[in-house]
């Protein structure tokens, strides 16, 4: 018998240990998702079902054209290199808050269908995030603004041009006095040049920039510490210890793709050498960074500064001051301080965007004292240009100094801090122009709204966090005649002679990039050598700076603001993939909740789903409570992006609007709040309790130096199947998922949805357990609810060699092929769902309704023509991207050359920013996946079932001094 690995006592949510009887019943039902059907419909729903079936039966007789024949439409003039159905790749970039992530856009028949990574891009290195993956759906979003509007009436560009020509000519006369420009954060050199050109035309124009998830605190921190705006960057490969004070480097944001890659690469290199770099994290609100920490503790927001001062004292050897924190926090600080002292010059201390400048300065001091500056921590110019703040704009608006306000790609009427009273002051502006992807809250209050072109439709450039300039090229003509920010600026600068996006872009780089290099850059997607150089800083100066005064310990509850992990600040609220993506830690979909700590919930006698009123400074929001393990006591976390009031949106008026509570002075936290119960309770839409697997060692943890937790039991145990009958053509596809590299970011799940035409089902269906994601990410907690370890485990189909589902199917709709894939043949499936009942991993999804047919026509344009769109009544599941395997096989068979090693890459594998997913041919010993299988950490999920899964896992690493997991119970 192989040694039994340490069992982690895993649980998935607070209701789980409570053994809620309703939940137990739900889990015990063979088909939780079908429970509602089994109860029997009432008369009305029966009639509705019958009517629907009749209508659907009638539809099957329909065909594409009136004469029953489909049509074939060739080109008039065939574009060069464009073949019907052929995959074309264009290097481009996706944007998040103005920051670029270099990607490759895959198009077929002229339609962008899928975002893949760009391996050569120096920042993204082939990685993507959820926002990049979902941007193709954003392009085809039917709710996008589709025309120029004047006071809510449809107008056109010509009318807009005519209207602004005279007005801006008059402004020019007055040197632009009273003209204000408000944009999001700008990193694009071309757009910045357009802003400069506009300022040259209107010298007295003011330019303001606003982002709901701004990086102002980081900038202010370096200004206070070093006297200049700087971006802090880290070299994880030189660090042995990383201490995060409410850090967010693994959380969604412009830094995620590049920084997470650096961290995981450093961690894997360290683990190979037996020197695992460890992550110590305190967090006020649990996030992906604290979830992946080896040592973690929750801390009240007002304790972070105290903690930072304590660490400074510990490191400088002046003796620790009593921080008065909880035992877990004190223990954490002892460990972190000891680790830092032992790794001078090889450690990193960092803080996230939500921490105030005082903490940022303390972090810089700590790094300076530890000798990290210039070694593990370095500074560069920030990618986003400096502009005036939103607060100064509203100030000017209140004073009546603003005659013309141009708002480009921002939605301040929704996401401005409430204390600025933006909408009230907006009414005082004489001419209001708004450009955006959506006719949103701001558009409704403006004289003119003009549609913005989607990044996939326009020429442009933008910088990544490291400064690398990515080039954006259009992969489709603007669907609704939108224009890019730079084009609109050009129009406003010279209404008579506006310039096109390509013209502006090429003109900006004309001098520095010659034609040959430009061609190369367009093919590669970025301008090489444009990343920022390291900026020297005076380490002595910051180390000697006096410590900032500590904030007083505030009474009442702290409200913490965080971007929603799916729809960010609300700008992706119309994206159904992101709405339905289970949030990494809560697994909530389609709504937001007020997260509270378990202790707070117990003290206030609040249960999950209780609707409460959160009141602070006389402003209040109402929402349901989510009890979040590992959250700091006395805090309430609210997420931004919901409670939209614009009607032209996918899901208006879902969730609550957290911006109502926000202030410009302290945008990330406010103290002195109070909770009040309303007595109502609602059911939250969560994918958490569906398809649980209980009482097993799903996630294994490999401590450095401990005996291997991996095993080969799943391949060596005897079984009753006749091995000799198995045929193979020599290929054996398999997947290994490295749990240590997984940060739980969901990029794989969204990529799978984009590649495989996975349907969106909506909130009610998810609540019934009918979500369709082929790849789910299970999240487990282990340890005490106050401070648990968090584990993520992506679970696609296991493609078991002895698949139980195949035994269950009465019509052989699921069966194996000779390359070891467990196939799902939709046209054979009769919908018995027996396979799902037989599946031990619960990875099969059933089409209870015709989810796909209901999608709007414009969204159907996004569908991958290489994958069948599933109809009602059939089962579906992960296919290992069989369409990509088939494409490679056909080329190989046609040319006679074998499939190049590791050249078939699944959508999830390609999307992963940290390269956690290995896929390939197990039959070839030199393949990446075969090497991963030889790792001592390698194990199979539910290996004892002896079904020989082709998808397997590598255990997570843990440092040797990590607390041993509590015994299995």
């Amino acid at each position, binding site marked *: 018998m192989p040694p039994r690995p340490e069992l982690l006592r895993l649980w998935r949510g607070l209701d789980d240990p409570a053994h809620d009887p309703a939940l137990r019943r739900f889990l015990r039902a063979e088909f939780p998702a079908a429970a509602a059907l089994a109860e029997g419909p009432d008369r009305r729903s029966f009639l509705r079902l019958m009517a629907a079936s009749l209508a659907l039966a009638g539809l099957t007789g329909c065909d594409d*054209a009136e*004469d*029953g*024949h*489909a*049509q*074939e*439409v*060739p*080109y*008039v*003039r*065939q574009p060069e290199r464009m*073949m*019907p*159905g*052929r995959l074309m790749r264009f290097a481009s970039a996706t944007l998040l808050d103005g920051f670029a992530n270099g990607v490759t856009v895959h198009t077929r028949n002229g339609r962008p269908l899928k975002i893949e990574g760009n391996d050569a891009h120096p920042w993204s290195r082939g990685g993507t995030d959820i926002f990049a993956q979902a941007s193709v759906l954003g392009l085809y979003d039917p709710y996008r603004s589709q025309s120029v509007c004047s006071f809510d009436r449809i107008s056109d560009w010509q009318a807009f041009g005519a209207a602004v020509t005279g007005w801006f000519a008059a402004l020019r006369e007055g040197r632009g006095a009273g003209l204000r420009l408000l944009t999001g954060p700008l990193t694009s050199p071309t757009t910045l040049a357009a802003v400069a050109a506009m300022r040259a035309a209107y010298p007295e124009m003011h330019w303001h920039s606003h982002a709901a998830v701004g990086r102002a605190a980081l900038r202010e921190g370096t200004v206070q510490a070093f006297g200049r705006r700087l971006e802090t960057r880290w070299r994880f490969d030189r660090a042995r210890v990383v201490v995060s004070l409410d850090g967010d480097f693994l959380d969604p944001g412009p830094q995620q793709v590049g920084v997470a890659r650096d961290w995981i690469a450093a961690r894997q290199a360290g683990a190979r050498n037996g020197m695992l770099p460890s992550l110590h994290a305190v967090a006020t609100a649990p996030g992906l960074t604290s979830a992946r920490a080896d040592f973690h503790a929750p801390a009240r927001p007002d304790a972070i500064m105290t903690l930072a001062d304590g660490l400074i004292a510990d490191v400088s050897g002046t003796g620790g001051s009593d921080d008065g924190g909880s035992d877990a926090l004190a223990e954490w600080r002892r460990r972190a301080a000891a680790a830092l002292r032992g790794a001078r010059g090889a450690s990193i201390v960092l803080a996230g965007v939500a921490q105030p400048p005082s903490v940022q300065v303390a972090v810089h001091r700590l790094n300076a004292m530890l000798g990290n500056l210039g070694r593990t921590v370095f500074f560069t110019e920030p990618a986003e240009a400096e502009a005036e703040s939103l607060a100064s704009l509203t100030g000017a608006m209140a004073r009546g100094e603003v005659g013309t306000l141009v708002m480009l790609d921002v939605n301040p009427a929704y996401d401005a801090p409430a204390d600025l009273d933006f909408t009230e002051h907006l009414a005082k502006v004489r001419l209001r122009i708004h450009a955006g992807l959506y006719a949103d809250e701001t558009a409704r209050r403006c004289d003119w709204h003009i549609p913005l072109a989607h990044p996939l439709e326009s020429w442009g450039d933008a910088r990544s966090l490291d400064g690398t300039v990515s080039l954006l090229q259009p992969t489709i003509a603007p669907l609704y005649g939108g224009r890019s920010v730079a084009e609109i600026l050009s129009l406003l600068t010279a209404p008579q002679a506006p310039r096109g996006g390509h013209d502006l872009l090429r003109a900006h780089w004309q001098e520095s990039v010659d034609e040959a290099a430009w061609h190369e850059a367009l093919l590669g997607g970025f301008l090489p050598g444009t990343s920022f150089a390291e900026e020297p800083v005076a380490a002595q100066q910051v180390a000697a700076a006096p410590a900032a005064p500590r904030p007083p310990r505030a009474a009442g509850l702290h409200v913490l603001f965080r971007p929603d992990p799916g729809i960010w600040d609300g700008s992706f609220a119309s994206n159904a993939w992101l709405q339905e993506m289970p949030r990494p830690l809560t697994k909530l979909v389609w709504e937001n909740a007020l997260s509270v700590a378990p202790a707070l919930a117990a003290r206030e006698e609040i249960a999950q789903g209780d609707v409460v009123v959160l009141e602070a400074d006389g402003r209040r929001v109402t929402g349901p409570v989510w009890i979040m393990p590992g959250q700091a006591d006395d805090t309430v976390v609210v997420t931004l992006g919901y409670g939209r009031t614009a009607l032209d949106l996918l899901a208006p008026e879902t969730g609550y609007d957290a911006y109502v509570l926000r202030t410009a002075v302290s945008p990330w936290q406010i103290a002195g709040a109070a909770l009040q119960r309303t007595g109502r309770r609602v059911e939250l839409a969560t994918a958490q309790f569906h398809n649980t697997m209980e009482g097993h060692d799903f996630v294994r943890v490999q401590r450095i130096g401990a005996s291997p937790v991996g095993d080969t039991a799943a391949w060596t145990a005897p079984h009753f199947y006749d091995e000799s009958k198995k*045929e193979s*053509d020599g290929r054996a596809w398999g997947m290994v998922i490295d749990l240590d590299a997984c940060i739980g970011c969901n990029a794989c799940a969204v990529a799978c949805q984009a590649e495989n035409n996975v349907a969106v089902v909506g909130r009610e269906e998810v609540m019934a357990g009918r979500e369709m994601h082929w790849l789910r990410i299970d999240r487990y907690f282990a340890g005490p609810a106050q401070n648990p370890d968090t584990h993520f485990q992506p679970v696609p189909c296991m493609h078991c060699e002895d698949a139980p589902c195949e035994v269950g199917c009465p019509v052989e709709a699921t*069966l194996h*092929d*000779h*390359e070891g*894939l467990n*196939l799902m*043949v*939709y*046209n*054979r499936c009769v919908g018995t769902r027996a396979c799902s009942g037989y599946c031990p991993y619960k990875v099969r999804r059933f089409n209870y309704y015709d989810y796909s047919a209901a999608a709007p026509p414009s969204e159907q344009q996004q569908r991958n023509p*290489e*994958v*069948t*769109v599933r109809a009602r009544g059939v089962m579906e599941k992960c*296919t290992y991207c*069989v*369409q990509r*395997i*088939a494409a490679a096989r*056909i080329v190989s*068979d*046609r040319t*006679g050359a074998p499939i190049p090693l590791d050249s078939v890459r699944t959508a999830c594998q390609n999307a992963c920013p940290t390269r956690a997913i290995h896929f390939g041919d197990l039959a070839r010993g030199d393949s990446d996946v075969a090497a991963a299988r030889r790792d001592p950490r390698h194990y199979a999920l539910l290996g004892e079932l002896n079904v020989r899964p082709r998808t397997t896992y590598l255990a997570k690493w843990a440092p040797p001094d990590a607390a041993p997991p509590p015994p299995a119970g």
Partner: protein
Amino acid sequence: MEQLFKPGADAIFRLVLFIVIFSAAAALAVAAALSGSAFVTGTTIAARQPVPFSHKHHAGELGIDCRYCHTTVETEATAGLPPTYTCMTCHSQIWTGSPMLAPVRDSLARNQPLHWTRLNRLPDYVYFDHAIHIAKGIGCSSCHGQVQEMQLTYAVQSFTMGFCLDCHRAPQNNIRPQDEIFDMAWTPPADQAERGRALLAHYHIRPPAELTDCSICHR
């Protein structure tokens, strides 16, 4: 007690039984015949097209190669339809005033594509790739029939799954040498059984068990 049934009842019963079984069988046979008939499948029926294009004239009489118009048949999944430009390479020189060709000239002049009626159709869940079939020795005429003799084009096969499987189970009956792929008049030679076996080895064609994997055609 009187007999319930007369002596002839047996005969009537047998007759009724026969009629019931016979009509059930006949109904099945009619349904089967009808489902495979040209009336339902549309085979052998020339659909209305914007231009009465004659494959007989172009491919048969003039001897234009299939690939002159269907350019991607050797490299892509789809064979491809010619853009209006391809038609006009010749028809800007000959038959320039023909009323039959007015839609083609119109298409070029207005830059609006021609809308052809599709004849050969597969369900959406079937993924057929022309290039691999050409590369492995399946000729055009095996599926599309004697196109060079069609005055107006029609489909000859309804592409049922049975049609595909017949060949995937026994490709040796249909594969040809590379230089005969575009021979539209090709018929299996007398020694096809022997030549087919040799070609199977030559093309490295997978065994039938692998060629009939569901994932070969369905994704």
